[in-house]
């Protein structure tokens, strides 16, 4: 039983990473109806930037804040420079562009930082005091950080006029433009926020899975699964989905099929959700008028 609870708790911890990545995907999906395949690599690259900053002697939290800021600016820049000119291109061209970004980030990271696996520091103490060994301090901290990020995002979208404008631009671009919202810039901001959330996810997961250019491919897949499970147009759903996927992955991996086929869980989950309930747990059903 102890093992069971251990698995559940560490599942919640990894789940928080899936949740934030899923959230980043959902944010871009809501605004543009595109799924950003490069999201994981963008997060990986931001984590490398954080690593470089820490190596340069910055204290952890300063590097953390700076990395989030850099990721935000980078996300906005990518939208402006790469995605914007292809606004009216077909969906496949955009998929190819995302793939192009994915390999560019992956390759440049390997080129600058080499492919050797690096350790990444954790800001939390090594010894956990109140958890009786069920969960490490880093995992606790990770869940806390993700929950704080979620609360901030929620507050931003719910209580600020910029957040409202962004939601409006995502929901109905034409009317938003008519009331004077600069829809293009709202999309760019959405990209920036998604990149920033991804950077947080990367920095939180790196102490566990270590830093290397391919660290995010598995995580991204679980992020997809989480986003779909929760409903790809629902941010709350994405978070709930993330935690569910994390716990499920750990339990199934530990008790049912062993670690070899863990990724296949994500495949089965993705296909299962899409077939049984394509809108996800909390998603809105889309009814199309023809």
């Amino acid at each position, binding site marked *: 039983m102890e093992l069971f609870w251990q698995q559940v708790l560490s599942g919640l911890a990894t789940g928080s990473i899936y949740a934030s990545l899923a959230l980043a995907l959902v944010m871009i999906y809501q605004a543009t109806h595109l799924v950003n395949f490069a999201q994981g690599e963008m997060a990986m690259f931001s984590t490398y930037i954080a690593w470089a900053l820490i190596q340069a002697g910055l204290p952890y939290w300063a590097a953390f804040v700076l990395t989030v800021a850099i990721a935000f600016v980078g996300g906005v820049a990518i939208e402006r420079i*790469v995605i914007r000119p*292809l606004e009216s291109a077909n969906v496949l061209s955009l998929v190819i562009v995302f793939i192009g970004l994915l390999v*560019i980030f992956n390759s440049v990271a390997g080129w600058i930082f080499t492919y050797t696996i690096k350790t990444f520091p954790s800001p939390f103490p090594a010894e956990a005091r109140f958890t009786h060994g069920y969960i490490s301090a880093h995992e606790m901290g990770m869940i806390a950080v993700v929950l704080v990020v979620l609360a901030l995002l929620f507050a931003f979208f719910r209580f600020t006029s910029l957040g409202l404008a962004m939601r409006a631009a995502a929901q109905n671009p*034409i*009317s938003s433009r008519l009331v004077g919202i600069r829809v293009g810039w709202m999309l760019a901001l959405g990209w920036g926020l998604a990149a920033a959330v991804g950077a947080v996810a990367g920095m939180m997961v790196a102490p566990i899975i270590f830093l290397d250019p391919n660290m995010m491919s598995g995580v991204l897949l679980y992020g997809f*699964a989480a986003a779909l499970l929760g409903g790809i147009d629902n941010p709350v759903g994405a978070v709930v989905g993330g935690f569910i996927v994390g716990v499920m992955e750990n339990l199934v991996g530990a008790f049912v099929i062993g670690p070899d086929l863990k990724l296949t869980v994500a*495949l089965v989950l993705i296909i299962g959700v899409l077939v049984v309930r*394509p809108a996800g747990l909390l998603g809105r059903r889309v009814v199309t008028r023809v």
Partner: protein
Amino acid sequence: MTPGSDHRNRWGVAATAVVLACALPLVLSNYQTFQLTLALIYAIALFGLNLLTGYNGQISLGHGAFYAIGAYTAAILMDHYDLPYWATIVPAGVVCLGAGFLFGLPALRLEGLYLALATFALAVCTPQLLKYKLIEKWTGGVQGIVLLKPDPPLDLPISADRWLYYFTLAITVLAFLFGWNLLRGRTGRALVAIRDHPIAAETMGINAALYKSLAFGVSAMYTGIAGALGAIVVQFVAPDSFSPFLSISFLVGVVVGGLASISGAIFGGLVVEFIPNVADSISKAAPWAIYGIFLLGFMYLMPSGVAGALRVLAMRKTTRQTQGAHVAPPLTRSTGEVPQKSQ
């Protein structure tokens, strides 16, 4: 220019291409011939993917899985059952036809990017599944299966690489003829109709579910045949050769080559085989970054692929008569998008 002469032109171009393809190995080295063989093999796989994505509008990022199934089918048949290499092509195609049809059934519920995601998951899982312990007896686990290079028959005085090239070329020509025949008739029109307007297609009496799963099956069959050829030519299959990147480069090949275009598959095959080499020769340090930049460049400069760009060039040259005659336009952005409420 009349449509008839346009038609004759196409046959002329195709015949010239085949003659050229036959002559090329005479001037190339064995290694270059081998590379060209791989490009042909990719062209077959891309033809299959183009059938699904270009003509039928279903995006797949998981065709590497079918390529792997085809390759493993061929390898297991040769390794465990001592079948000659040429006899493994058809079984590999049949197995993949079945696998693709079965995967196509749940895929019926999915559209656009959702399908891309589901198939991407398939691509990511493929190496893990191939390493799975219970089937290790057949697949050879992580080590994979090593095959022998087949000798040319009848003591022909050519090298094994050249023989495999001609063998592959023959199958490519057959596969393309079959596919062209399939696409120019009722089936092809049905596939395009489903892509362009599913509801209108159904009211015309097209069984969309059947055609869509069949498209998936036939598409997987092509890719599986390519996989079997790939296993024979490379003489080796192992789980890590079928990484998600293989599937991704298939989709890249289809889009860069040209969607919904038969010649696009050939251009795409050349792109898949040679662009990584070109990128590698430009920068040893970060070849994939160069590859990515190529992709972005292609999408900016030739959004409808090489075949599309050539078509535009040809159209500018000829009179307006031929405009739109044999053109199946590429997908629009609206595919797979959730429609916005319009005012």
